[in-house]
Every structure is written in structure tokens, then in C-alpha cells.
């Protein structure tokens, strides 16, 4: 802005920009709008009018912006007073404290006692069935609508073990040996919390171990036991006699178990404390 060349103006603009930013913070963060001293804001603007004589378009635009932001804050102040004087107003800090103290059972009871569920039913009418039939009749066969259901491109799919072997990144023997080592470790440790089994001294080796363990689970050589309520996952070696049967008959399912560097750091800390 041209006016910045004048050091006196620069100083004043700085003050004005600070006030404008403060107005925006109040609007976005929802802080107390009375933190802004409206009188002082107007005095600053007035002083600037008197001493610097706003003339350029930039000056006038800044003046208009300042007034607009101030008007928004005054509107928020009005709303704030209205909210505080309404019967809904409760000190947020007090409520937060109370919420933290209550047991889930008590919170649920409070909800049920203030809950008036909507009563609504779904019903298929003969007319709607007819519309459904008309839609079915007008629908092109699935193989003619491929564009609606595109297959994911090959590039997006994850690298499989075969790809890694093909790219000479890993050899089949090396991979089998690694899997065997993880299985031996699991058999030696028995049933164990999944993360305690996976995590080790380095995060990189932990990720590698998780990757190899997924193969053990997939092949039925290890079993995952999940307790969703407590968010605990245990892993144990499978009963050898059943491995093949399981691998043959078990229905495939994916079990996502998250690993993260932060989680690994927390685990390390916990290990140190113990």
C-alpha cells in the first residue's frame, strides 16, 4: 500500500490491522465479543481521520472494512447479552466440569429423560412399487453401465508380495524366513496384546513386523481376538492341527488395526516406566 511509505501512517495502520484481526478472531473463535473496546476502536479511527486525512481509495476501503467489522462485533455483543439473559445460559465451565464428573449411565439417563423421539414410519405403497418397477425397466444392463462403476486403476492398488519379488526387492526365501521368524517369536510368547507383540525398539521394524504378521493371520497361522469395548486386540498362535482347515474354510475378512508413530512413542514410554 502506498501509505506505508509514511512512517506515521504505517504505525497507525499497524494498530488498525491489529484491531481488525482481533475482530476476526472473536468471530471465528467465538470468544467474548466484549473483549474489544468499541469506544477505543472508534477513537483510533477518529484520530486517524483527524490527523492523516484519508484520501486514497485504499484508505477509504480500509475505513469501510473497519466499520463493517466493528458492526459485526456489536451484533455479536447483542447476541451475547441475549444468550446470557436467556434461560438456556449456563456457565460453560461449570457444565464442562459436571459432564466430566458424570458416569456414562447418568449422562444417558439425562438424555433419555429429555428425549421426545420422532414418530415416523416407512411404507412401500403400490404406487411406489410401480415407480420402482418402471425404474428397473428403464435401467440399462449392468455391463452397459461400466462408466458408472469404474474399476480402480492398477496404479492405485497396493503392492503385493508377488510384485515385490518380481521387482527383485525381496526374494521368496527371504520373505518365508522372515515370516517363520515372526511365527517362532509368537509361538514363544503365546497369547499377547497385539501392539506389545508388534512394537519393538525401532518404528520401522515394528511396521515390518505388522506387515509380516498380517500374512500369519491371513494364512490362519495366528489368530486375532478383538475386544471392541475395551479396544484391545490380542494375537495368539493358531492350533497347528486346524491351520489348514481354517485357511481353507475361513471366510475372508479385513481387520484394520492402526499403527502410528505417536502410538509407538507412547508404547515406548510405557515400556520405560514399567
Amino acid at each position, binding site marked *: 500500500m502506498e501509505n506505508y511509505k509514511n512512517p506515521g501512517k504505517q504505525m497507525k495502520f499497524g494498530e488498525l490491522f491489529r484491531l481488525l484481526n482481533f475482530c476476526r478472531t472473536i468471530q471465528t473463535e467465538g470468544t467474548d465479543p466484549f473483549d474489544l473496546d468499541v469506544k477505543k476502536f472508534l477513537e483510533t479511527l477518529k484520530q486517524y481521520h483527524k490527523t492523516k486525512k484519508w484520501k486514497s481509495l485504499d484508505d477509504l476501503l480500509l475505513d469501510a472494512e473497519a466499520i463493517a467489522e466493528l458492526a459485526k462485533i456489536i451484533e455479536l455483543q447483542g447476541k451475547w447479552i441475549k444468550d446470557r439473559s436467556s434461560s438456556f445460559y449456563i456457565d460453560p465451565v461449570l*457444565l*464442562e466440569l459436571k459432564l466430566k464428573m*458424570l458416569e*456414562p449411565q447418568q449422562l*444417558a439417563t439425562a438424555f433419555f429423560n429429555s*428425549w421426545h423421539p*420422532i414418530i415416523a*414410519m416407512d411404507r412401500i405403497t403400490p404406487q411406489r412399487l410401480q415407480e420402482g418397477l418402471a425404474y428397473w425397466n428403464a435401467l440399462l444392463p449392468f455391463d452397459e453401465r461400466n462408466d458408472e462403476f469404474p474399476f480402480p486403476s492398477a496404479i492405485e492398488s497396493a503392492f503385493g508380495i508377488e510384485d515385490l519379488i518380481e521387482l527383485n526387492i525381496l526374494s521368496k526365501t527371504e520373505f518365508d524366513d522372515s515370516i517363520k521368524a515372526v511365527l517362532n517369536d509368537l509361538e514363544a510368547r503365546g497369547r499377547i496384546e497385539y501392539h506389545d507383540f508388534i512394537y519393538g525398539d525401532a518404528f520401522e521394524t515394528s511396521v515390518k513386523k505388522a506387515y509380516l504378521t498380517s500374512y500369519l493371520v491371513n494364512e490362519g497361522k495366528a489368530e486375532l481376538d478383538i475386544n471392541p469395548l475395551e479396544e484391545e486386540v490380542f494375537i495368539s498362535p493358531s492350533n497347528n492341527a486346524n491351520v489348514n482347515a481354517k485357511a481353507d474354510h475361513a471366510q475372508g475378512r479385513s481387520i484394520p488395526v492402526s499403527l502410528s508413530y505417536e502410538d509407538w512413542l507412547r508404547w515406548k514410554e510405557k515400556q520405560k516406566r514399567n
Partner: protein
Amino acid sequence: MEGETEEELRTRTERKVKKAAQLLFFRQHRIPGVKGWELKKALGDDYVEVIGVLNSALDKLGMEVKRISEEGGGEGEGKEKRAERDRFMIVLKSPVIEKASGERIDNVAMLSATLAYIISKQGKASRKAVEDFLSAKFPKQRIYFALDRYIKQGYVGEADKVLYIGWRARAEVDRKALLDLILGA
């Protein structure tokens, strides 16, 4: 209507009340309830009176027609125009039944805490603040899943990572009673 006998008037009103009940009980859209303008189209200009008659009938069954104001509309908007934009739905009048939901107790507790927290922050709070608050008692992964679910169900609304009270909580939850119950527990 002019020249209409009392008997004819009663039959006409009964017919309209039946129609209003069907419209309100059976779902027409993804969100339950019917807009005022839809009721006006189906029942005529006196739809607010018809809803009043239906309300007295539902009262005996422990239900009522609730009118939820929708956002928008200017200051100068008339009462009639506002009613046309409002959503009408039937709700249980008093929370008398023991269990009206298959929700797990911890999910209801999280919903209860989320709503109370948002209400205490004058109706909106950043998603992060709500997540941090809930994380004092529940694992983060569960919180993300639960919040997404409340948003999908309409209990909580989300815009630009800010959570607010959703249409369903406005219709179903007596917010004042919820806060009183929590503070009094």
C-alpha cells in the same frame, strides 16, 4: 365454506385430519416430517387449524405435532410465510417409555455430552474441541465414529469443522431439560 351444513363441515375436517396424520406419520423424505407449504398444498389454507385438531387427538395418545423453525427468512417475514417454511413432525410428548432406542449406553452418553457441550458453547463448537472434550472418557477412534454417526442421524450438524445442534436434536431433545438434568445429577 358458504352454505355448508355442520355435518358437512365435520366430515370435511375429519377427512383433512386423517390426511394430515398420514402425511405426518409416514415418511415422505429422507428427513422425517413435512414442510408447512406441503401441508398447505395438501390440506388447504387452514392447515394450521387442522394440525391443531390433530394435535388434540394425538394428545390422548401421548404424542404431539412439533413445529421446527428452519433457518433463514428475513426479519420482516410474516407469520404465515414462516409457518410455510417450518417443518412439522410428530414426537412423543413425554419421555415415558423405558427404552425407545437400540443404541448402546455409551453411545447415548457420548451424544448427551456432545449436545450439552455444544449448547453450553452457545450452539456451536469446533469439532476438535468436542473430540478433545470427549476423549477424557472415550477412545479417540470411537469418538470419530460416533460423531460421524450423530451427524448422519441429524443430531449434530457440521460446517467447516464446526459442530452445531442438528435438526433432529432440535426436534427431539428438550435442551433446557437436558442441561437441568445434567446439572442436577
